[in-house]
């Protein structure tokens, strides 16, 4: 295991190619800025909501992909997060609770030329839409799914969500929830997602980089954004995301670099048997060589899965790209099957199809 993690990573996957553009369009594109992605709709989240930051970072990274804005589509489910498409000056579809990945799957199958983002919440993605998240990921549908995780149902005013911690008291769980929470990144990995990442609404720089990485990934990209709902679950992540503590309580992952953290980068993650362990450099003879090296591109998901389960307070919370591997996408495979069918059987001939099977002819007769 340790060996694998330290082994040289395979070459990085090819980034998503933007569509071929005429020079004139290319010129227009390079001029696109954040502003071009701001729609004329008034943003209506509660003042102070983490969603504002996610929206701003999303708008900021959009010009970087080289896609004309008409080729970008945002599809959402229902929840506070679901409003985001209205605020993007691209094509947008605010669908129904939990089902955004299904619309995205059909759209992407029909239109491989589009860049499709799915915006969802922890309830939307993991409760009602759990099944669809699972299947869109295992099919490697080329969608960039961004899940806003505020550990609560915002839009319906504060009920427990599938990520709420055990014992959480909410309107629907006055005596504390008795449902064990789900680890979103573990779910994504179990569903065979080819890209899995995590970031935080308030860490704007990091969020921007992470969204950009997700956007460039070809295939199913699952990004969890820890988001603050200051109305119904204020400070849900503060214990490890606050400026004063985050260096010690979060682990910023970088490909090919040892998993070190702490203000002085003097603590790290070591593997002991099958378990991760937090160690201090220089203590008990621990050297940098003992620290696990992050490999996003590892084909097997074991270490990625381990990272997905590390959480505060037992561990620093990993953020960044946990996994980024290559696999053919659903729309590529589908298009290839269609092309192969045409190759083998020729372009379909309707007249022939209608006249297929056993046919016979009835001659005109002069019986009454």
């Amino acid at each position, binding site marked *: 295991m340790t060996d694998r993690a330290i082994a040289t990573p395979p070459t990085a996957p090819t980034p998503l190619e933007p569509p071929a553009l005429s020079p004139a369009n290319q010129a227009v594109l390079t001029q696109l800025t954040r502003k071009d992605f701001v729609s004329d709709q008034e943003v209506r989240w509660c003042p102070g909501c983490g969603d504002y930051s996610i929206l701003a970072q999303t708008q900021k990274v959009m010009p970087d992909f080289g896609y004309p804005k*008409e080729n970008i589509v945002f599809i959402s489910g229902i929840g506070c997060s679901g409003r985001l498409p209205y605020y993007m000056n691209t094509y947008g579809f605010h669908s129904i609770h939990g089902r955004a990945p299904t619309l995205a799957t*059909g759209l992407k199958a029909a239109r491989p030329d589009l860049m499709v983002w799915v915006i969802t919440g922890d309830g939307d993605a993991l409760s009602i839409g759990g099944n669809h998240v699972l299947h869109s990921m295992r099919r490697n549908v080329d969608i960039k799914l961004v899940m806003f995780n505020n550990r609560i149902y915002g839009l319906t005013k504060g009920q427990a969500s599938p990520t709420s911690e055990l014992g959480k008291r909410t309107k629907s769980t006055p005596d504390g929830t008795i449902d064990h929470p789900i680890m979103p990144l573990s779910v994504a990995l179990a569903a065979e997602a080819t890209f899995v990442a995590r970031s935080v609404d308030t860490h704007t720089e990091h969020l921007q980089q992470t969204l950009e990485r997700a956007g460039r990934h070809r295939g199913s990209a699952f990004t969890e954004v820890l988001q603050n709902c200051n109305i119904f679950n204020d400070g849900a992540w503060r214990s490890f995301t606050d400026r004063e503590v985050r260096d010690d309580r979060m682990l910023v992952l970088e490909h090919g670099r040892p998993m070190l953290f702490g203000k002085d980068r003097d603590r790290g993650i070591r593997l002991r048997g099958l378990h991760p362990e937090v160690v201090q450099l220089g203590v008990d003879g621990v050297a940098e060589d003992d620290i696990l090296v992050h490999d996003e591109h590892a084909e097997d998901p074991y270490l990625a899965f381990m990272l997905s389960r590390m959480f505060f307070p037992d561990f620093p919370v990993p953020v960044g790209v946990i996994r980024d591997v290559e696999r053919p996408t659903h729309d590529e495979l589908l298009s290839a099957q269609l092309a192969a069918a045409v190759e083998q059987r020729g372009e379909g001939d309707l007249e022939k199809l209608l006249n297929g099977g056993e046919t016979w002819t009835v001659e005109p007769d002069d019986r009454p």
Partner: protein
Amino acid sequence: MAERHLPTQELERVTIRFAGDSGDGMQLTGTQFTRTAAVFGNDISTLPDFPAEIRAPAGSLPGVSGFQLSFSSTDIHTPGDQPDVLVAMNPAALKANIGDLPAGGALIVNEDAFTPTNLHKVGYAENPLHDGTLSQYTVFPIPISSLNARSLDGLEMSNKQIDLTKNFFALGLMFWLYERSMDPTLRWIEDRFKARPVIAEANARALKAGYAFGETTEMFHTHYRVAPAHLPPGRYRNITGNEATALGFVAASRKSGRPIFYGSYPITPASDILHLLSGYKHFGVKTFQAEDEIAAIGSAIGASYGGALGMTGTSGPGIALKSEAIGLAVMVELPLVVIDVQRAGPSTGMPTKNEQADLLQVLFGRNSDSPVAVVAPATPGDCFDMAFEAVRIALTYMTPVIYLSDAFLATGAEPWLIPSVASLPEIGVENRTERAGFHPYDRDPKTLARPWAVPGTPGLEHRIGGLEKADVTGNVSYDPDNHHRMQLLRQAKIAGIANDIPELTVFGPQRGDLLILGWGSTYGSIRSAAERLQATGQSVAHAHLRHLNPFPRNLGTILSNYRRVLIPEINLGQLALLVRGRYLVDAISYDRVRGKPFRITEIVEAAEAALEGKTVS
């Protein structure tokens, strides 16, 4: 072998029912006889009837599988009320079907299967072949299993494999009895078992042995001939409703220049549409086996949003799951075809049995007023036309359209006059590309359809979704008057389709004593009943609805032209409820929900009662 020269009797129509254990290959036997009769030029109509269990215990009553077919020298509309001949491969098949055989009917049984164990399994205390209980029928007990086994002597096969070919023996015998050529079936066997020559040889031998048995035995004193039917000239093929449905969609895709995206989750009896469309990739058809019905319709809506022809197919339980998404499609006003191949019963019901009881579900089974167009084919061949029509309406009006087929249409077959591609109309649909004056919820003044502006079109970036739309701009709106107006507009758009569909035609007198009004797969039984009643001089007409929302413009006028209106349905009065509510006509409901199509005689009796003003029950 000396040929026996037996007298041949000309018949106009024959109805055969093959019945056996579900492992006995009765569906195959029935299908082969159907093909042969169709290719010969008979009009045909079929009714497969099989258990939902893949393999119920062998020889048990729930395991009985049947296939009824009617072939005729005249135009027929149904697979026949009652069989003239029942072929029963075991005691269970006899027990389950004998009630339908009229006195004097012919009964061919596999005598070998009437063992004490098999008899005991289905509760026969005595062997019915010997106790006189079958005396009202003409019984032909034939040791099919052993005769068949003997004819396969010398082939390297297990006893079990040998036994599996006995259906071909029975088929061969029926081919001899009705003077039908074995050639189409022999060709089929050769083709089907190319890779397994021993099996091919065994099936061919079994078929020929059955035929030869008919010829040599003294058992049969006559054989029968049913002359080719007098059908409109042209090229025909034998087609089931599900096949015709798939072809109709492919044709509509070609004629509209829109590639099909079909998202579906397997469910009986709709799965075959998914199977068939999956084989049409060279027509640009993309199919997607979704994780559930909700994903299936979601993906179809996504594909339509992208400019493709989004379609999804299922049966009643699946429609229940799709309702929320159908509502979304109503709100975003995108073209979408939703296929409901209805089956019997609420919940899982009787998956392989027939019913037409989802009409109210598809019309009203959603939150709020949520109008969609609804069409229903009348016969297996009509599935082609109505599938095409569903696409035309969806694309022209930017609306979800529900296509209501059913189990009887889906699996039943009839000869189909193949249309020429040139005779099919073009379906013209444009995407909006013009930026000037673009609003996502502008409406075409004639159709009230909104523009279809697909992602990838520069300058038309806009947002849609399930929240109420402001008229014209499509922005989210909670304005009370706007909501009222939008509800009316959505309703008016669907109602307006009435100006664009054929008026309802009436078979029989244009005014008179009784109108029988039907929809869907009951067409054949109702039409035959009307023919019989008219033949006896009664003033009875038949009209059949293929558009159920909106209704044809002239329906109200037609209803007012008859003293009484009878509505037979395989549900508990759903169309009758609509007609009564909409037209204030005191329609008489006639309902039978037994998982089976109507018998012609049932409708004749109901009509006679209605004519006399008696209550129909």
